[in-house]
């Protein structure tokens, strides 16, 4: 192994100067180029976060428009078509462009730090994931600026409503290609995380010593790798139906619309856990830190996370109880769905066990984490109600479902992600959000959220179907809808306070030292913000809550680190990957190709260089060029020799060999 590494890479290194004429090695540390070419997992994580928060605000505006339309019966804020576009884009945006990338931001930024690594396994692939995600997000939203409009087929895009017959314009094509790119991005990123977690753990960081957030990252990554191929297939089939007249879902030629639902939900249900497991991981970090004791029943929390992952693949048809599956299939999926409540319940028990006998500091991250436990519990209970298939026949596609999954996705995922931002903010930026403003935003968000979504349970039981742009005043829905809209406005104010304070803190907040929460996991052993190489000396892990252990055994750890530092220096210092523009070029190629496929009209006169095919081919060429240059530029990297205080030499060229 060592022989291979040495012979190959070292040999190439000696020829490095000859290459530099052809391959551009960007070295910019600031400015646009530095962001486009970065391979640093922390910068990429930060960019994921920024994009996610931008789209979170876009999705939030869409949500407010939806609520304003429904504030009064027979509302006239939006037309039917605008309303349908709003809820389609709200769902698509929040799931794929807000919650998922926000989780990815934490995977990128925090996970390598937690396992004592200096970067992810494939830094350039990581950059490619980021830019491909951005390309997909842009394509999905392109319709706002076009005559065809943004997609309006619902976020589930049920066939045959998305077929050329019922949706002849390009909006669905953009939805298809956008999601396809997001799938590429997610799968590439997840493979990267899996390899990183399995291979780049610090010495002594055994699997059963991994921080729970890293465990949930690993499980989520596996879920993405296993579930996204299903939606990829579904989207390819839909694209072929729309572009080439195939008949996968085309009823008139014997296609099966039900096939779309099975493929979509085999992806879609694991997707639910892709959204919630990272949140559970974050909460499982915050509760022990602020209770100042270890997580209660760590192995059970980990295994219940894994079994949620497994069971998540066996319950997809509970989204289809009303499609007429027959008694046996309905019963089987109902029971499987109930079974998944057990590992989920176990997590809640263990979180409460963690609090028990602890010493709880009620700081802002803790408030959000406790809010998560409460709200997720309510969302879980309404989930159990859905698993009872006969009851679900009344609840399915009603506002009861809307209430349920917003309790899981806002009260669950989003609360945990907001908690995570507060929790890790001091580590990421060396500044801390004021407790007052943090808690104020929590209470406003908490109140607004419940005022919005709790009445929706009643609306659903009172027969209000979802995805309806209007309703009459005689159905008993007026008061609940009015309250929900007021709640949504309060929630909007809360989110505004949250982010206004965040931006203020980023620029001018109180500066803090390292480890302000007296935390338990390795990332807190780093100075803030962490240096580009993360760990000057790769840490050695002795216990599950590694940093907590280190703090109890300072003398031994210091001695150990000194020895390891010497050994690393003897090996040539800290090995760092080069920046590279080629991942961005490859993503750009994908973007151009996707534009060609989705937006450009069919050339009426068929020919090889038709506009549509031509642009798609150009995109393909750009992508291939990016990939080949990326492969041929090599991965030799450079070395850093930080001094004892951790200051790296400023001139990279000098350190290069």
């Amino acid at each position, binding site marked *: 192994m060592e022989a291979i590494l040495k012979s190959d890479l070292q040999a190439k290194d000696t020829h490095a100067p000859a290459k530099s004429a052809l391959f551009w090695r960007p070295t910019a540390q600031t400015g646009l180029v530095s962001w486009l070419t970065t391979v640093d997992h922390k910068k990429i994580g930060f960019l994921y976060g920024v994009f996610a928060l931008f789209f979170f605000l876009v999705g939030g505006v869409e949500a407010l428009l939806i609520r304003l339309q429904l504030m009064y*019966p027979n*509302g*006239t804020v939006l*037309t*039917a078509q605008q309303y349908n576009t709003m809820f389609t884009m709200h769902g698509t945006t929040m799931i794929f462009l807000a919650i998922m990338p926000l989780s990815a931001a934490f995977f990128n930024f925090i996970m390598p730090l937690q396992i004592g690594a200096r970067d992810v396994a494939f830094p350039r692939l990581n950059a490619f994931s980021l830019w491909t995600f951005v390309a997909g997000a842009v394509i999905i939203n392109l319709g706002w600026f076009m005559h065809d409009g943004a997609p309006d087929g619902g976020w589930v895009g049920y066939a*045959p*409503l998305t077929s050329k017959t*019922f949706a002849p314009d390009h909006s669905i094509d953009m939805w298809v290609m956008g999601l396809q790119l997001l799938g590429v991005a997610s799968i590439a990123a997840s493979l990267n995380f899996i390899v990183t977690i399995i291979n780049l753990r610090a010495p002594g960081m055994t699997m059963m010593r991994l921080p729970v957030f890293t465990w949930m990252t690993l499980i989520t990554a596996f879920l993405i790798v296993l579930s996204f191929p299903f939606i990829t297939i579904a989207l390819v089939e839909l694209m072929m139906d729309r572009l080439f007249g195939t008949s996968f879902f085309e009823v008139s030629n014997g296609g099966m*619309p039900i096939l779309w639902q099975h493929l979509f939900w085999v992806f879609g249900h694991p997707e639910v856990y892709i959204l919630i497991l990272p949140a559970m991981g974050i909460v499982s970090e915050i509760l022990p830190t602020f209770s*100042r*004791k270890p997580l209660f*029943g760590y192995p059970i929390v980990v295994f219940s996370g894994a079994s949620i992952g497994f069971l998540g693949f066996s319950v997809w048809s509970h989204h289809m109880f*009303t*499609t*007429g599956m027959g008694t046996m299939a309905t*019963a089987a999926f109902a029971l499987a769905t*109930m079974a998944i409540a*057990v590992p989920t319940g*176990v997590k*809640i*028990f*263990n979180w*409460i*066990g963690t609090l028990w*006998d*602890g*010493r*709880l*500091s*009620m700081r802002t991250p803790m408030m959000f984490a406790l809010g998560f436990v409460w709200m997720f*519990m309510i969302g879980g209970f309404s989930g*159990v*109600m859905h*698993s*009872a298939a*006969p009851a*679900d026949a009344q609840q399915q596609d009603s506002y009861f479902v809307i209430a349920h999954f917003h309790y899981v996705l806002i009260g669950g995922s989003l609360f945990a992600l907001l908690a995570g931002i507060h929790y890790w903010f001091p580590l990421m930026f060396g500044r801390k959000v*004021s*407790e*007052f403003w943090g808690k*104020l935003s929590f*209470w*406003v968000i908490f*109140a607004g959220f419940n005022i919005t979504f709790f009445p929706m349970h009643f*609306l659903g*039981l*009172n*027969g209000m*179907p979802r*995805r309806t742009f*209007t309703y*009459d*005043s*005689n*159905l*008993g829905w*007026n*008061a609940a809808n009015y*309250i929900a809209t*007021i709640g949504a406005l309060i929630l909007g104010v809360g989110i505004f306070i949250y982010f206004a304070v965040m931006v203020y803190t980023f620029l001018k907040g109180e500066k803090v030292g390292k480890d302000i929460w007296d935390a338990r996991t390795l990332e807190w052993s780093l100075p803030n913000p962490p240096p580009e190489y993360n760990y000057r000396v790769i840490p050695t892990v002795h216990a599950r809550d590694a940093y907590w252990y280190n703090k109890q055994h300072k003398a031994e750890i210091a001695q150990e680190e000194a020895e390891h530092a010497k050994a690393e220096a003897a090996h040539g210092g800290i090995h760092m990957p080069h920046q590279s523009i080629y991942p961005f070029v490859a993503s750009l190629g994908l973007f151009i190709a996707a534009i060609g496929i989705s937006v450009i009209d069919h050339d009426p006169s068929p020919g090889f260089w038709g506009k549509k095919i031509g642009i798609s081919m150009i995109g393909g060429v750009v992508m291939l060029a990016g990939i080949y240059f990326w492969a041929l530029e090599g991965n030799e990297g450079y070395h850093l020799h930080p001094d004892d205080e951790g200051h790296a030499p400023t001139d990279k060229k000098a350190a290069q060999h």
Partner: protein
Amino acid sequence: MRLSSLLTSTARWGRAGFALGALALLSGCDYNFWRMDGHQSTIKVAGPVARSQLEVFYVTCWVTLVIFILVGGVLAYATLKFRAKTEAEEKAVPPEQGHGNPFIELGLIGASVLALVIIAIPTLEGIWYTYDVPEDRKADTYEITATGYQWWFKFEYPSEQIAGTGALTTGNELVIPAGRPVRINIRTVDVIHSFWVPKLAGKVDMMPNRANFLWLQADEPGYFWGQCAEYCGDSHAVMRFRVIALSPKDFADWVAQQTSPARNVTPKPGETPKAQFASLRTFKQNETGITDKYDVAPLEAWKAKQFPEKDENAALIAQGKTLFVAKTCASCHEVRGHGAAGISGPNLTHIGSRSMIAAGLIENNAEQLQRWIHDPGSVKPGNKMAKAYIDNNIKLTNEEEVALVAYLQSLK
């Protein structure tokens, strides 16, 4: 730092004020949403299928409520009990670093499984009961076929055959016999729709290429609200229908009336066409088409529609009858016996006897009917009639609209 303590106490007051404000907000509105007794309530049910589904729901409700109180109680207690009250307490020596207790874990897992078994048993019973008509009731079952179109419902009665035309066909108002199980075949001609009458039964989707069905039964005669429950395009929200359950005798009368051809009205000699209502006013976007009078006693309103209006103008009706064919209405709509045999739109042979038009959206009266045929696209965005007007360059004058309305109203 002093400022922050001031702000903290402000926050405490703010929180209290906020809670009070929320209470005021709640008490300001009417409380009807807690009662959940609307026309589409799944709680105030009117038939055995919906009742069985409601009973399962109540089981899940009680089980989860008990668990919520227990778990929530412990969580609230732990949060209050173990809270560090001062900054000094936060920084004090950490508590014992316990890692958990496998016996507690196993006990709680066992308890959760038990709770789920309590839910699972009625769930399984309910799945089989609600799926199809029970064996002992099969002989008494009445069969109907419901077909979804963008954005209306067609209802066919295979046991009521009409010589020369086939099964009795109506639209958007499903009339059923009360006290009898009704088995409904669920079909679609275009996209996925869903058949949902909350007070009678949970929904079943109308899937292309799939022979779905459901059963329901209305205990008593009554008038029930239904709505498409699967997103099906632009006008999904206004794809509604009604179910009217009648006593056996009323039902037989209704069948007899519906199976007869469309009503003919002969003008008296010398009668001139004269409108019986005010000319069209302008309607707001999405303006409701339902009056309080109808809403108070909808079944009575429906029954009143079964008889010819007193102030009919036969000459006007005759004019409308001619226009119905001349303006190509007949190419999409059927009026049996009047030479109109279109099939892509609802069957209008007895449209005058329905309480609602435009798929359960607006009341079937002269004003709303004229609103509908004057500009169908504004009532129901994207619908085929609006498109047909444009494609075939159909333009109606006010007089023509009035005549058509009178004609359609006469089709009892």
